C-alpha cells in the first residue's frame, strides 16, 4: 500500500498556526513523524483559512523538502496553487487533484506531464458527486481517455472513487468498494486507485474503527494507495495485516515492525 500521510493540512490548527507564523519546526516534525510511522508520501494542503495559498503552498513544500525527498501530494482544487507547489517541489510529486471535468483535465494533465508528476483523478464532476457504480465508472473512463488523448501514462494516474461518509451514503459503500476493482481493468497498464480515507467516518462516533474497517475491505478490493493518518497505529497495523493475509508480504513474528522498516 502506498500510504499518503494527511496531517500537513491547514485545516488542522497546529499547521494553520505554523503557516501563519512561518514556524518551520512544527511542519518538519509532522513530516518526519508521518514518515517514521510508515508514510510513503505526504499530502500538502494549505487549508481553507489560507488567504494566499499560492505563496503558502510554496513555503510548505520548501520547508518539507528540507527534511525529506519523499513524494509530495500537492493538494488543492486550484490549478494555480498546484503549479506554485510544483515549481518548488522538484521531483517525486503527485498532483491532488483533478476532477473529471474537461477544462480541469486540460489544465492539469499538461502540468503533470511538464513536471513529471503523478495525478489523482477524482470521479466527480461539475454535475456533482456520483450516486452509483456506473456513474463512477463513466467519470473514470472520461479521465482515462483524457490521459490517453494527451499521451499521459495511466501508470501515473490514481483514480479516486470518492468515499462518502457512511452515515450519509450507507447504500453506496458497496458500490465504492466495487469501483476500486473495476477501475483497475479500465485500461492497460492499469491506473492506480486511491481513497481519501477519513471521509468515510466524517461525523460518526467511531471514526477510527470505521476508517480501519473500510480500509481493510478496500485492500481486499485491490486498493493501491490511501490518504490517511499514519500516526493511527491501529489503522496502519490493520492495513499491514490485511496485506499479509493477501500474501503481499512474508509472515514473520515481527511482521508489523518488518513492514515499517521497508
Amino acid at each position: 500500500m502506498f500510504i499518503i500521510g494527511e496531517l500537513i493540512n491547514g485545516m488542522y490548527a497546529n499547521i494553520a498556526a505554523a503557516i501563519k507564523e512561518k514556524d518551520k519546526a512544527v511542519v518538519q516534525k509532522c513530516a518526519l513523524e508521518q514518515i517514521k510511522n510508515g508514510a510513503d508520501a505526504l499530502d500538502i494542503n494549505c487549508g481553507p483559512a489560507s488567504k494566499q495559498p499560492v505563496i503558502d503552498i510554496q513555503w510548505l513544500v520548501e520547508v518539507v523538502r528540507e527534511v525529506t525527498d519523499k513524494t509530495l501530494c500537492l493538494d488543492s482544487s486550484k490549478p494555480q496553487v498546484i503549479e506554485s507547489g510544483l515549481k518548488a517541489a522538484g521531483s517525486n510529486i503527485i498532483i491532488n487533484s483533478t476532477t473529471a471535468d474537461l477544462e480541469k483535465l486540460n489544465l492539469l494533465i499538461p502540468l503533470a506531464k511538464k513536471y513529471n508528476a503523478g495525478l489523482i483523478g477524482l470521479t466527480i464532476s461539475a454535475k456533482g458527486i456520483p450516486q452509483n457504480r456506473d456513474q463512477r465508472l463513466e467519470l473514470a473512463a472520461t479521465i482515462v481517455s483524457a490521459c490517453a488523448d494527451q499521451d499521459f501514462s495511466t501508470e501515473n494516474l490514481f483514480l479516486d472513487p470518492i468515499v462518502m461518509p457512511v452515515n450519509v451514503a450507507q447504500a453506496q459503500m458497496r458500490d465504492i468498494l466495487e469501483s476500486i476493482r473495476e477501475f483497475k481493468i479500465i485500461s492497460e497498464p492499469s491506473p492506480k486507485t486511491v481513497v481519501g480515507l477519513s471521509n468515510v467516518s466524517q461525523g460518526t462516533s467511531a471514526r477510527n474503527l470505521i476508517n480501519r474497517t473500510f480500509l481493510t475491505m478496500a485492500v481486499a478490493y485491490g486498493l493501491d494507495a490511501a490518504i490517511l493518518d499514519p500516526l493511527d497505529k491501529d489503522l496502519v497495523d490493520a492495513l499491514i495485516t490485511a496485506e499479509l493475509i493477501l500474501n503481499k508480504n512474508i509472515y514473520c513474528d515481527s511482521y508489523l515492525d518488518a513492514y515499517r522498516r521497508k
Partner: protein
Amino acid sequence: MVLQPAVEKWSGKIAEVAIGNAGPAGIIKVGGQETLPFLFSEGKIPNAPFAAFEIWDVNPADWPQELKTAWGESLKDPFAWAEACVNKYKAQALCLRLAGSHPDYGNRSAADEAKLASGLAQKFGLPMIVIGSGDKEKDNAVLPAVSEALKGRQCLIGCATQDNYKTLTAACLADGHSIIAESPIDINIAKQLNILISDMGLPLERIVIDPTTGALGYGLEYAYSIMERARLAALSGDKTVASPFICFVGLEAWKAKEAKVSLEQGIIWEAMTAAALLQAGADILVMRHPAAIEKVKKHIENLMGK
C-alpha cells in the same frame, strides 16, 4: 508477429556482503543482484557465486571413503588440508568447521580453536568462513573466542539460530565479522531471525542466510522453493530477506546413499546438488570433494558468461 520476451522490473536488491580483508587473497563479495539468478537481461548481477572448501579442525572419521581417498593423509592436519586446498586446488575461500569442539566429538577448547582459526587465517590469508559444532552452549563459548582471534579479518561466522543468536551476533558486531543466520527450511523463521539480529545492531548487509538445504533426492525442492520465495520478496523490496544465501552442499550431498555408490557418482551428486542450488539463488556453496568443486567452478564461469 514478433514475440516480446517478458522482462520483469524489480525494485529491490540483494545486500552485498564482503568476506575477507585486503590480504594477498583479497576480498570476495557476494550478493548485490538486482534480478533472479543468471537473468542478465533483467538486471545487474555484480558478483559471481563461489564455492568454499570445507575443512575440519579434527580428522573427519565419519566421512565416506570416497572423500577420504581424495584428501588422503592431509585430513589429519588442518594446515596440510588447507595447504592442499590452496596450492593444489586453488581455493578461493576456506570454510573451517569446528566439529572437534563438540562435547561428543573431542571437546576441543575455545583457546585451541581460536589458535587454529587465526593460525590458518594468518598462514593462507584467504577469505574465511567459520562454523561451530552446532552444540549451543559450546558454540557460545568457542565462537566468541574465534571471532576475537580473527578480529578485523571480516570473516563469515555461523551459525546463529532463532533460539541462539545473541552471543554470536554480539561477537560479530564487536569484531567486524558477518554472520550466518540458519533457519530450518522455514521462510518465516529466516525473516524473523534477520530482524532479531539486525535489532541488535548488526546491519542487514552483514547477514548471510543459511536456509538449510537437502541434497538432490532428499528434499532439495523444498529448499529451492523457500529460496525462490525469499528472492522474489527481496527483489520486490523486502529488505529483511534480501540476504545472500550460503548452502552446505557437501554436508548434505555426501549423506545421500546414492553418493556412496561409486566415486564418480558421489562427485556428480555433490556437483548436481550445487548446480540446482545455484539456480535457486545460492551465493556461497560449501563443498567437500575437490573434483566436484572443480566442476561447479567451471559451471559458474559458464553461467556468468566468462
